[in-house]
């Protein structure tokens, strides 16, 4: 039963991953899928930049270009950045709080597979009559007018993957609330766990409005609804509100976990405890809270009236304060420390000025009268790539290098890592810094081409050249990853030497049950404390060795998700193809059938027995 030792063939490994409920393996699944979508989204970005390298270019057609930007934005946000972050949360958070797994391992797997099939469904649109083309925001009037099935792929795909994310969010929340090891009080949780907690709470409250909006859009386009059709009394602005009530918290869902990763890295590689820990926690919660009160700053030009605009302007600016607290606390963390410039740390260090630059342009946008000029211009594009690429993506790359040894027990090459960093970082600033000025010079965003001699030609060319730098950086990273996997040099526990938190105290490779004995947490940075006190094992235990209860693997999550995937095709071709309704029903039968099987068949898991645990030294498996 238990998956002790033995080499497996490819088929067995595949089956293992298809059925796994182990948070560490699910993390790897998220990483692979998210990475793949990142490359796809990146290639779409390159197409955008090639098209815009020169005026009046016809590399892609107008319609195709709109599909590119829509899929680029949607893929990057929903299918790359968020899943990659969920991957790190899965990999790290349970270990950080001393848990054997997440609260609902089965649901964890279900969450992943829903995301997976949702993402595949969305991307199949490329081959089935065209991708969505109304922008990642898919504003209602244009989305309703959009011919073909692109927008239907968008709504259905995001509905499916959205459920996955929601499940993931609830799962992490419960894990953190109920499964912390003894002594791990809220105010001793590592910052990455805290940001996971707040980001998950944001997921819990932000995804329902998106789901509702998507359902409205779906029934309007496919089932005779009238929510956004103004000739029938509908109102397109409802979509904008629902989308941004989700959309703004979404950007904090992205950035907060990245903040968490950076917090860990700064402390580790400065050999210093995080400066102002409680202020950091408070700022995180405050950002999450304020994140729900500012969404209308995306709608300043919609005509909500001066009162609404003024209120939302000022509320938005308020977010600078807790964010600033974080920036300065990080600075003071490295201040007086002993900084080691590993690749992870270089990313973290590069993040500070970059993100600050992106954040302050956000504050400029928050000034409504000024936003009248800047809205929907390249200034906005520059702003959000500074915060997203300069914040979230740098966070992901930093996390990748930092947590790679934790996840795989090997280490990415530092030399190649620096190459990636410099190529990506310089390319990034080259691409996006100049875009601020394009916006100020009057260039609207989402234009598939632009006329020559409007003063934009050179800047666009520079921007496109920069993008090549980023692509090269990513390519080197891919090489680095492959090389590391092939070389397969094991590095063992606490490879950075300066690990502070519980995840580094676990033996490598991490046993599938994580902790043979539940640890006792004695303070913030518990591993550091133990090390300082000369404890070789790195942990104090809260219980004697005993039987460990583990959940069984299950294929049902794949089946449930696949059923929805099938049903989505039925819904999409409803009223167009004779097979649509049967397929819809078939899909739902698969899904609900699998759910019923799951609830009728008791699954109590199994126990790893004490004797087996005693045999194994260190916990190889």
């Amino acid at each position, binding site marked *: 039963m238990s998956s002790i030792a033995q080499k497996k063939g490819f088929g067995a490994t595949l089956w293992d991953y298809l059925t796994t409920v182990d948070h560490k393996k699910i993390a790897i699944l998220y990483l692979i899928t998210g990475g793949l979508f990142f490359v796809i989204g990146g290639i779409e970005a390159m197409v955008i930049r090639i098209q815009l390298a020169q005026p009046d270019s016809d590399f892609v057609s107008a319609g195709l270009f709109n599909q590119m930007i829509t899929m680029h934005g949607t893929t990057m946000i929903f299918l790359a950045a968020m899943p990659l972050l969920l991957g790190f949360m899965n990999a790290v958070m349970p270990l950080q709080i001393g848990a*054997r797994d997440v609260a609902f391992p089965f649901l964890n797997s279900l969450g992943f597979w829903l995301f997976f099939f949702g993402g595949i469904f969305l991307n199949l649109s490329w081959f089935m009559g065209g991708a969505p083309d109304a922008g990642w925001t898919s504003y209602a009037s244009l989305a309703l007018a959009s011919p073909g099935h692109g927008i239907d792929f968008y709504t259905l795909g995001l509905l499916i993957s959205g459920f996955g994310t929601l499940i993931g969010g609830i799962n992490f*929340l419960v894990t953190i*609330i109920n499964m912390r090891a003894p002594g791990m009080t809220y105010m001793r949780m590592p910052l990455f766990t805290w940001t996971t907690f707040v980001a998950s*709470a944001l997921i*819990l*409250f932000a995804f329902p*409005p998106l789901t509702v909006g998507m359902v409205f859009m779906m029934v309007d386009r496919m089932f005779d609804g009238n929510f956004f059709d103004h000739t029938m009394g509908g*109102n397109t*602005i*409802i979509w904008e*509100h629902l989308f941004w*009530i989700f959309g703004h918290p979404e950007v904090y869902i992205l950035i907060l976990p990245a903040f968490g990763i950076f917090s860990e890295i700064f402390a580790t590689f400065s050999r210093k405890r995080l400066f102002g820990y409680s202020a950091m926690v408070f700022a995180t919660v405050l950002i999450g809270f304020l994140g*729900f*009160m500012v969404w*209308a700053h995306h709608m300043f030009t919609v*005509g*909500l*009236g001066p009162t*609404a605009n003024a209120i939302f302007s000022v509320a938005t600016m308020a977010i600078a304060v807790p964010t600033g607290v974080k920036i300065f606390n990080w600075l003071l963390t490295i201040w007086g420390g002993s900084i080691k410039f590993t690749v992870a740390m270089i990313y973290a260090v590069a993040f500070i000025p970059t993100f600050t630059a992106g954040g302050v342009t956000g504050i400029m946008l928050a000034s409504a009268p000024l936003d009248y000029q800047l809205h929907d211009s390249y200034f906005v594009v520059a702003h959000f790539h500074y915060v997203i690429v300069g914040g979230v993506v740098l966070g992901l790359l930093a996390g990748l290098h930092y947590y790679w040894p934790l996840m795989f027990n090997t280490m990415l090459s530092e030399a190649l890592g620096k190459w990636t960093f410099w190529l990506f970082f310089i390319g990034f600033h080259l691409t996006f810094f100049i875009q601020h000025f394009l916006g100020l010079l009057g260039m609207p965003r989402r234009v598939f081409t632009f006329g020559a001699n409007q003063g934009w030609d050179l800047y666009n060319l520079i921007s496109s050249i920069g993008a090549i730098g980023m692509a090269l950086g990513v390519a080197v990273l891919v090489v680095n990853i492959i090389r590391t996997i092939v070389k397969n040099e094991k590095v063992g526990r606490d490879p950075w030497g300066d690990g502070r938190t519980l995840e580094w105290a676990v033996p490598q490779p991490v046993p599938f049950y994580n902790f043979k004995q539940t640890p006792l947490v004695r303070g913030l940075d518990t591993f550091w404390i133990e090390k300082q006190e000369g404890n070789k094992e790195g942990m104090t235990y809260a219980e004697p060795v005993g*039987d*460990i*209860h583990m959940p069984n693997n299950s294929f049902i999550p794949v089946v449930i998700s696949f059923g929805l995937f099938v049903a989505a095709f039925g819904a999409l071709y409803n009223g167009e193809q004779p097979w649509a309704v049967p397929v819809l029903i078939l899909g739902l039968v698969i899904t609900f059938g699998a759910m019923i099987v799951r609830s009728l068949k008791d699954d109590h*898991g199994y*126990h790893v027995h004490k004797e087996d645990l005693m045999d194994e030294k260190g916990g190889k498996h």
Partner: protein
Amino acid sequence: MAHDVHAHVRSQTEYEYKRRRSANEMRGHVTTFAIMIFLTLIAFTMVYAGFSAYFVVPIILLLAAVQVILQLYYFMHMSHKGHETAQLFLYSGVIVAFITILTMITIVWW
């Protein structure tokens, strides 16, 4: 996982005490129910009586709020120990809900 739930066997007095306490609680629930029915009746009657909307609407909304609080705190035991997180998240949800509804009825139409 908690494979070691310790079954505590009550003594006869403990057991009777527990029974009595929960019977009491159940009586409280019936009273709560009666109040809820009563509030519903008031709401419907007010609408039937045809008072001015400005008068009726706030009152029936208030009655609804009271009913919901009764449901949450009595039927769903929100006041019991162990419901702190439940409260936190439910109220956060209510705040988000409130803001959403407020904006939709104020700034969707100009």
